[in-house]
């Protein structure tokens, strides 16, 4: 097992009622790496994220974080505490809270109920929230309830919440879904900026977006990796063409 790997999956298998969502999947993400994962519907992309974040337990296989922590033994909250953040496919923010409160809830810090009741709030918190608001271009909307944001703004708010957690690894599920071309482009720029400091895994359908990211690509099909390399390399791979780009 690689000692440097930030995330290490080996032989991970998950089946639901006999359907193999993941079939001996193996994947290694290095610290500071940004990786794009593509694949047709049902290829196991979301299930892979569920396994890493503790939502689904694999029937077999190893999942290690930071070289030593066995993720298959932990629940979602513990895994989030280790520094793995997740953005859902459908933007999921707290709609009755303001944009600033959404970020406040996500900020790194104590997570226990008693800390939440009696914990002190300080200026540093406000400053950090302001910085994040600038990063995700929502500073003007800080006191607006998240329910009133547009789809693209919600996607960005959720990315901002991920950053607030100060994770080591971000799992981002279809960040460009439902965005306009301009928003998609801006999102690619934002993710590239984030990848300077953190490892990022991006699951995406939009090939133009993946091309804009310009990173190593892993192609999944029927729960296993069928090709890996640059976008040009995988799009030229006959196996990929057959199952995904095909016809």
């Amino acid at each position, binding site marked *: 097992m690689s000692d440097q790997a930030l995330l290490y999956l080996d032989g991970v298998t998950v089946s639901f009622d006999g359907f193999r969502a993941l079939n001996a999947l193996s994947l290694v993400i290095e610290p500071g790496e940004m990786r794009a994962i593509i694949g047709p519907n049902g290829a196991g992309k979301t299930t892979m994220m569920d396994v890493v974040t503790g939502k689904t337990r694999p029937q077999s296989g190893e999942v290690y974080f930071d070289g030593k922590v066995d993720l298959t033994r932990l629940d*979602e909250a513990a895994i989030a505490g280790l520094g793995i953040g997740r953005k859902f496919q459908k933007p999921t923010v707290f709609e*009755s809270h303001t944009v600033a409160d959404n970020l406040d809830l996500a900020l790194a810090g104590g*997570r226990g*109920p008693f800390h939440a009741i009696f914990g002190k709030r300080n200026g540093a918190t406000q400053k950090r929230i302001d910085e994040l608001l600038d990063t995700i271009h929502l500073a003007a909307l800080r006191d607006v309830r998240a329910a*009133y944001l547009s789809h693209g*703004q919600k996607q960005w708010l959720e990315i901002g919440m991920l950053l607030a957690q100060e994770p080591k690894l971000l799992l981002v599920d279809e960040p460009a879904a439902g965005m306009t071309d301009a928003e998609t482009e801006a999102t690619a720029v934002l993710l590239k900026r984030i990848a300077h400091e953190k490892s990022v895994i991006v699951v995406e359908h939009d090939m133009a977006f993946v091309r804009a990211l310009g990173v190593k690509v892993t192609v999944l099909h029927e729960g296993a990796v069928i090709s890996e390399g640059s976008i040009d390399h995988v799009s030229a791979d006959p196996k990929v063409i057959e199952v995904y780009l095909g016809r």
Partner: protein
Amino acid sequence: MILRFLVNGLDRWTIAVLIILLAVAVAVPVLNIAVPPDSTYHVPTYAVSLVGKYLTYALLALSVDLVWGFCGILSLGHGAFFALGGYAMGMYLMRQIGSRGVYGNAELPDFMVFLNWKELPLAWYGFSHFAYAALMVVLVPGLLAFVFGWFAFRSRVTGVYLSIITQAMTYALLLAFFRNDFGFGGNNGLTDFKDILGFNIQADTTRGVLFATSALALALAFLICRGLIASKFGKVLVAVRDAESRTRFLGYRVENYKLVVFVLSAAMAGIAGALYVPQVGIINPSEFAPANSIEAVIWVAVGGRGTLSGAIVGAVLVNFAKTWFTSGALAPYWLFLLGGLFIAVTLLLPRGIVGTLAGFVRERRAIPPAAEAPAPNSRVPAEQRG
């Protein structure tokens, strides 16, 4: 620390509610005791007890709103916590009767003598002391809520499944308390109370004090709930209500938050029950009836879910209507009316009375930030969902 937490919850609206409750706490007993009966301002004793009862119902409604309105836990078993608190108080009051019972037995309450029991059951030990009984008023419902919540929330039982098992819980207790050999008076429950802390429970002054205590307890509980909701804890609760799995992926142990708020809410319901029993003079197993718990949920829905003050308004209004209807020719139709009210509120006033009023006020002020926001999304904000 605690003071700061309470002050955080204070806004103009909260202060107004607190002032009203404090004014009621003073005015009603004074108008009953100090004003001569022939004056138009005199409040008759039966009205003091009646409104006092409404106030304890309002405290129960507040506890339901805390878990349902803010954390999305639709408990249809809060009547059980209310009744358990009531029984703890009832047991203390039974022990105060002493040898003044029908059988004149100083050691055993009447129903035990009737059942030919020779000694006091273990569960009754200590209840002759008020402090012990008062502790049990919060401890017993709190402990039941803790054990119940520990298993339910850890197993991630949510939504309608959770509601159903809370119903089962209160129904199981109903059946248990109905049995004579369970040791709490069976079908007849506990009644014929004589005095509380040495004061005659029938006396106008005692009733006045009980009334004021109920109003103060309600005010204090309201202040604590407001403080909780204004704190980060409250924000996490709302986050759990709106997007539970998102909250988990942010690293919050959702089950712990639910457990804390559920236990706290159960203890509040227990206190409500303990204040209810001396004012109505009886506690029997029918308080565990599933319908009672459902009624409490209706009060909250009518007043406005997730508003706290709405729970108080809803409980008082619906119970006032209930008293008015069930004492006239319309009595047989009360349940139809209650059901109709629930449907009407769900369809026409989904945010309840207070929620709708607050909405009007907010619209009139036309919160500037919302106006800046781009075309409001068609999705209904979570607080408006059923």
